């Protein structure tokens, strides 16, 4: 049946979009367009249930409501995936923020406790970004 083909295709497409690394703007725009289209389709389906049934018949589904249900399942899945991705991005930022705060605070606390690695005065650590500075008060 046509509907089975379409549903499987939709699910596979969602999985593909979800799994491949994406260009943020393109994907975000597509998601928004899809959302608006879905909303419009819903309004149309509510206004003209008979058309919906006709389309459903064409696709090999018995009733219009069944078609709506199928579409809902696919949309729900896409929404979940999208949410999960979004959550991962937020989670990563949140981690970075917490890490920055933690390290900054730790540097203060550990210095107060008299812990530092000032014994090693050589600054040649091979770390170009941020050479550790041994200040005088560390040297005692």
């Amino acid at each position, binding site marked *: 049946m046509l509907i089975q083909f379409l549903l499987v295709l939709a699910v596979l497409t969602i999985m593909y979009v979800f799994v491949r690394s994406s260009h943020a703007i393109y994907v975000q725009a597509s998601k928004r367009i899809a959302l608006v289209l879905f909303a419009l389709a819903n309004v149309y389906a509510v206004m003209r249930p008979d058309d919906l049934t006709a389309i459903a018949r064409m696709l090999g589904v018995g009733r219009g409501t069944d078609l709506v249900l199928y579409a809902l399942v696919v949309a729900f899945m896409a929404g979940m995936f999208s949410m999960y991705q979004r959550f991962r991005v937020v989670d990563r930022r949140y981690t970075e923020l917490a890490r920055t705060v933690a390290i900054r605070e*730790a540097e203060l606390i550990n210095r107060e406790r008299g812990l530092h690695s000032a014994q090693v005065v050589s600054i040649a650590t091979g770390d170009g970004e941020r050479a550790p500075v041994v200040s005088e008060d560390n040297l005692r």
Partner: protein
Amino acid sequence: MTTVDGRRNEDVWVVIPVFNEAPVLESVVRQVLTVFPNVVCVDDGSGDGSAEAVLRTGAHLVRHPVNLGQGAALQTGLTYARVQPGAQYFVTYDADGQHRLEDASAMVDVARSGAADVVLGTRFADHADSVPLIKRIVLRVAVLLSPAGRKLRLTDAHNGLRVLTRPVADQLQITMNGMAHASEIVSYLGRSKWRVREIPVSIRYTEYSRSKGQSLLNGVNILFDLSVRNRG
């Protein structure tokens, strides 16, 4: 390099992720400090006084304001340790006292000898029978399932005891906050050009470490996290 004036292992930083380990933490850290003078404990938002236990020792303390997961704690520890002057070798070590210091020292020696860029501990080379049977099977399967693990011919991908040399630690960026970090590290090593060596270590499965050990069911979470990694 061991020198007479007791300044040995000053180029080594031991990173210990800590989450609610107060009962054993202090003694574990004190022991580590007898061999490695530089220890950084990353308290991952513990609520049981783990941080205070660290403060009673001579270890550096970094506190996550909230609980982020073991992977995040390891990365924080590495980030902290690698800007410390003179840091050349980075050891990851579990807070529950299941690792042996002799093993860690032996692994650092291998890294120092230049024979490897990364030294991983494996439970399965010598004393495999000390590992509980189900755990043995699951860990074996985990290695076989991972392409990087097969490529590197690893026998134990989820051992908490590791030694990284400076260039590796500089490049490594753990993004898996939870327990999937072990697999993430292996897959990173599989893609990289670093020379990886496995060294047999033994794990003390004490009652405490057993109670703290992760449930095997967590493997499901790890697989899910890994299958969708870096897609966000």
